[in-house]
């Protein structure tokens, strides 16, 4: 197999750039530039080209096969991050036969084929690299450390045992087989089912950490919703005026709220009107507000009709606090009075929902777990019949196992791989 290389850090001018070389000949090739470290230590070295001219002074790191990211021999050159330095070193590298620039995602692919990562870990790695907020990073690192795959292995083990017991009851029924094996099967199925549904409910919240939470600001026309949005955004994102019905479309701004990605929605004021376009905006406001993870009802008085059913986490906030004195839960978009407190409240509510344990994030994982859970419920229900239709219970159990296979990388592998590797950019 070819030895591959690529820049591991972002392209462009920087203090330091890292060039990673991986493959059977990584050590031999690197030997041509400098003396590589004897053990897995980092050393400062002078890199020289074919004509013995100095390229750069660089930190050189050596990773032996089995102890590197790809599972192969790896050398990392940490050079000064000038464009010319990087391109000089790369062109020197490509001079060697069987040594070439890596394809997109090729380092990760090698890690996958060498058994250093499984599919879920590859996805998590992609998430980790894409992570924008602290919560996203924590979640990705948890999947990357393998706890998700460990759970999958234990589910599969239990279900395979359950299947084996059922099959024994079917295929060896004319021999001396205990006639209560289905009891243990029911227990196993129950156990895996509740463990999966626990992960699923955690995951529902967790997927928000990845995709972000939404908060809708709703209320009557002209209560100051757009002004509040502008204050949160820290800029003039929405047009404001004292004319009722100024906001028609739904406006979105995305902010990092103490590590959580949150999108705030500014919506049209809720009122009865004959104006066609405003009405479209109001319909949209109802829809988006009810779908949001949390609603801020901005009101002029606490006994106002909210028009949309409020859930327990929702916040009802008095407007124009600059004109009121000392009332809790009141804000002013104009002066910013009460806004930090409001944001603190929102982030606490979301933090309470987030979890510290591993979860499933990708749609592929969620679909697979949900399908597996549905099959397990069917299995349980068949097993509770008397006489139990063993062949149907076994069939549902097979469906469950193959749904899990789908999550943990067994069937339909090709399309998943294509999807993953097309999401990867060079050199990661």
């Amino acid at each position, binding site marked *: 197999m070819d030895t591959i290389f690529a820049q591991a850090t972002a392209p462009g001018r920087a203090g330091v750039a890292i060039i990673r070389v991986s493959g059977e000949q990584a050590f031999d090739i690197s030997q041509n530039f400098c003396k590589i470290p004897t053990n897995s230590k980092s050393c400062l070295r002078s890199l020289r080209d074919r004509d013995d001219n100095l390229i750069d002074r660089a930190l050189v790191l050596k990773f032996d096969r089995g102890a590197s990211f790809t599972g192969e021999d790896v050398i990392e050159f940490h050079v000064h991050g000038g464009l010319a330095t990087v391109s000089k070193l790369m062109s020197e590298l490509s001079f060697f036969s069987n040594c070439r620039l890596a394809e997109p995602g090729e380092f990760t692919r090698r890690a996958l084929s060498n058994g250093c990562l499984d599919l879920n870990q590859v996805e998590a790695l992609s998430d980790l690299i894409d992570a924008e907020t602290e919560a996203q990073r924590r979640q990705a690192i948890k999947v990357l450390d393998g706890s998700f795959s460990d759970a999958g292995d234990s589910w599969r083990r239990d279900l395979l045992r359950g299947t084996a017991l059922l099959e024994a009851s079917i295929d060896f029924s004319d021999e001396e087989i205990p006639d209560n094996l289905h009891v243990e099967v029911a227990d196993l199925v129950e156990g895996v089912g509740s463990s999966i549904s626990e992960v699923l409910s955690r995951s529902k919240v967790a997927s928000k950490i990845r995709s972000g939470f939404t908060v809708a600001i709703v209320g009557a026309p002209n209560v100051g919703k757009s002004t509040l949005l502008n204050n949160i955004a820290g800029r003039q994102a929405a047009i404001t005026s004292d004319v009722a019905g100024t906001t028609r479309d739904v406006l979105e701004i995305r902010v990092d709220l103490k590590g959580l990605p949150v999108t705030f929605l500014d919506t049209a004021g809720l009122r009865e009107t004959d104006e066609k376009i405003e009405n479209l905006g109001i319909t949209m406001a109802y829809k988006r507000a009810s779908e949001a993870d949390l609603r801020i009802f901005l009101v002029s008085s606490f006994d106002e009709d909210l028009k949309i059913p409020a859930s327990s986490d929702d916040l009802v906030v008095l407007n124009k606090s600059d004109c009121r004195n000392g009332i809790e839960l009141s804000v002013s978009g104009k002066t910013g009075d009460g806004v930090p407190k409001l944001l603190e409240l929102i982030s606490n509510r979301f933090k309470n929902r987030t979890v510290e344990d591993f979860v499933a994030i990708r749609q592929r994982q969620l679909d697979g777990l949900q399908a597996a859970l549905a099959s397990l419920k069917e299995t349980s229900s068949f097993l509770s019949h008397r006489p139990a239709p063993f062949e149907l219970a076994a069939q549902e159990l097979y469906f469950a196992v193959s749904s899990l296979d789908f999550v943990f990388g067994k*069937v339909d592998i090709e399309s998943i791989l294509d999807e993953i590797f097309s999401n990867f950019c060079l050199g990661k």
Partner: protein
Amino acid sequence: MKYSQTFVWENRGVFHVKHFDVLVVGGGHAGTEAIHAACRYGLSAALVTLDRSKIGVMSCNPAIGGLGKGHLVREIDALGGIMGVAADASGIQFRLLNRSKGPAVQGPRTQSDRNLYLMEVQRLLGKQSYNLIEGEVTALLQDGASVSGVRLMDGTEIKSRTVILTAGTFMRGTVHIGDKRVSAGRMGERAADELSVQMEALGASFGRLKTGTPPRLNGDTIDWAGLEMQAADTDAVMLSFMSEKPRVEQVDCGITHTNAKTHDIIRENLNRSAMYGGHIEGVGPRYCPSIEDKITRFSSKDSHQIFLEPEGLKSKSVYPNGISTSLPEDVQGQYVRSILGLERVEILQPGYAIEYDFLNPKGLSSDLESGILEGLFLAGQINGTTGYEEAAAQGLVAAVGVAKKLRDVSEIRFDRSTSYIGVMIDDLITRGASEPYRMFTSRAEFRLKLRADNADQRLTDSGWESGCVPAARYSAYLKKMELLSRCKSALDEMAVSPNEARKAGIELGLDGRRRSGHELLAIPTVSFHNLVRLDGSLAGFSTATQTQVSHEALYATYIQRQRHEIKALERDLDVLLPSSFDYHAVAGLSFEMRTKLSDAQPESLGKAKNIEGITPAALTAVLLAVKSFNFKKAI
């Protein structure tokens, strides 16, 4: 009506007139099924056997069918084969296994009168036109890389374009009783050793397998009075679609158990057992352990069940199913007489273990043609299987393969989603055999569809087109299908409201939706009787038709879902693996995976997936390697 003549060929020397299409070697269950099918195709055929009186003999337990095995018999029957017919003619105790479980996992089984079975097989063969030759095959004749016939012990050469070898346990067969060892193919019959040696010279690499039998008991000396008895089913389910009811008297089996004393005797003499004394290297089946194995491996169990199965209506021989052994004769006598009901029993023939050569079936084509010589087909125990039914099915597959090769008849597709035969062939040629291979329903991932009751619906049409299904068989099938389709359209036309359904005893939510008869039958608690209460005219359909329609409705939704799985399977199958692919060069495969894949050389990713122990990670690595292999080839 075809007039035919079967004759014993006794002259010596080269037979220079006849050049057969196919020569079947061996007259066991694989051989008889193969020769009969060859005749149905109208091929000029000959059967070579050591002893013509032993054609169709049941050398192990006197039963046909069971779970998975009953399915195989029905499939053979659906293609015009003889095993089901012979079993029904000789059946003395019909029992449908798993009667209380769903129809997909029910397996018809019968105990047969050993002598009646053999006579029926010989009678059925007698109606066909082929040449019967008594003799021992000592060598295969070659014409370049192709087989061209066989040579007999006396030097006679018989020419044939193809050969189906069904040598059973005769290839270097060795019988073990304690430390006594005899070269034999069956108890008291000559083994065939020269053939193994020649085939090895041609590049065949044999493995050794082992199987065992229990001592045969004299039924007159068994004290039946104190034993639990098991009767035949009162409504017998037959093995062949063509039979209606048992032809001979039905008998009971006795049930007894081993006890602590039995176990003590066996334990004390374990070192005298051929298996435990180190005389046997062959691998035995885990699901059919000897009594020595049972006691050693399951030492906490203080009793094992034994079925006492009469071997025939007139025979006094009884087969004690569950205590096969390779202990010396005197120990067999001691432990057997420690068992309830057998205190004074006389042993007619001691139990023995038999070791024999088999060829790993991994190299075979899906028609069971061997890679050793073109035109050489292998079927039965030589391919590492065990069981009459597995052998017979292979004999049939090989004969279809021969007909395809010589006559270009249309193909009968045996694949995993349409038949148990397909499951077995695929298992054998992709996974090989590491222990004697036996069919189970759990081997069939599409078993809700592959039922004993619809084997004809799955196979008879293509068998008819191909030319191995006789006209009488086919017209009976068409009649069944006609009735089925009339009944199905009657159910289609039903539009039952929940209120009407409730009056007929069907619990339904009042959702206002009208349902067809099929939809109602798909509800597990609904039976055809409920439908008859809704529409009296349905009572006009026979019980067989009613049952068939009910079975289909019960699994309809599952079969629909499985159809998606079948599609996914086919998609996987599409990724082809190069035949010379070097798995040792695939990065990230463990040594175990490399060895398994190199040995199997699967044709496709789908087949690689089916290899035992191959992990998802290994498949991914293979897929990536193959893609880059193809990519490099493309540049």
